[in-house]
């Protein structure tokens, strides 16, 4: 077993164990904090796949932004330590059935498809190529994304102002 495979299994174990805690913990605080391990493991996977810019983006936006805002919201809402209030779980059996069927179909599909498969990219800095892609073929989606972010910003302010006024 070579080094890359060992690193992959360690990162995958961190990611999957944290995701297990997120999915099955009875306390919403544990779920939110376990998501940190999952995001960090995925960031390591990005490094393994040679995506250095995405690694930094993952750290900045997911761990520094989304996770902090989520934990902030968890702390702001009521009775977080009370399991029956904070993290009630219903419909476990139907959910198990659904994810078992979906998982079996997807596992069959991904093991029985011959993906177009190169040997794997060489590890070079990706910032230059991503920047060229954003200003070249992806210029229009890039501009639309900025409008989406502006709409989200204004929408969040409007919603929370209405909440504060009442």
């Amino acid at each position: 077993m070579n080094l890359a495979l060992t690193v992959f299994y360690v990162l995958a174990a961190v990611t999957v164990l944290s995701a297990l805690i997120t999915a099955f913990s009875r306390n919403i605080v544990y779920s939110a904090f376990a998501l940190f391990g999952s995001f960090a493991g995925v960031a390591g996977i990005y490094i393994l796949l040679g995506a250095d810019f995405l690694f930094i983006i993952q750290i900045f936006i997911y761990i520094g932004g989304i996770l902090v805002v989520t934990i902030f919201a968890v702390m702001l809402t009521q009775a977080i330590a009370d399991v029956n209030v904070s993290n009630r779980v219903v419909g476990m059996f139907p959910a198990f059935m659904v994810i078992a069927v979906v998982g079996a179909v997807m596992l069959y599909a991904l093991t029985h498809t011959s993906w177009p498969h190169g040997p794997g990219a060489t590890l070079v800095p990706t910032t230059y190529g991503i920047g060229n892609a954003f200003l070249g073929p992806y210029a229009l989606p890039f501009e639309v994304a900025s409008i989406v972010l502006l709409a989200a910003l204004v929408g969040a302010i409007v919603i929370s102002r209405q909440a504060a006024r009442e």
Partner: protein
Amino acid sequence: MSSGPTLTHFLVLGLILFLLGSYCALTRRNAIGILLGIELILNAANVNYVAFAFFSPVAKYDGQVFAIFVIMLAAAEAVIGLAIILAIYQNLRTIDVSANETLRD
């Protein structure tokens, strides 16, 4: 990278993350718990995008560009979702999605 992790390794990791996120989003009655599950699903999609971009013989950066778009939409979704959750909590004093049936009546 001859005996390193193959494309299937990363796809199976993405599948496991997606299933755990789906389970979390399906069974939680806490609205924030549902958002956590959706974040896991989006991360699984990103793992697949970047893995395909790495192993693709032609497209070098397209997968990573799409992953950046997914991360951007995840951030916008988290901000709007949490703003709505806090507004609901201010009005109804609960974020249990089974209890919030005001819109239905």
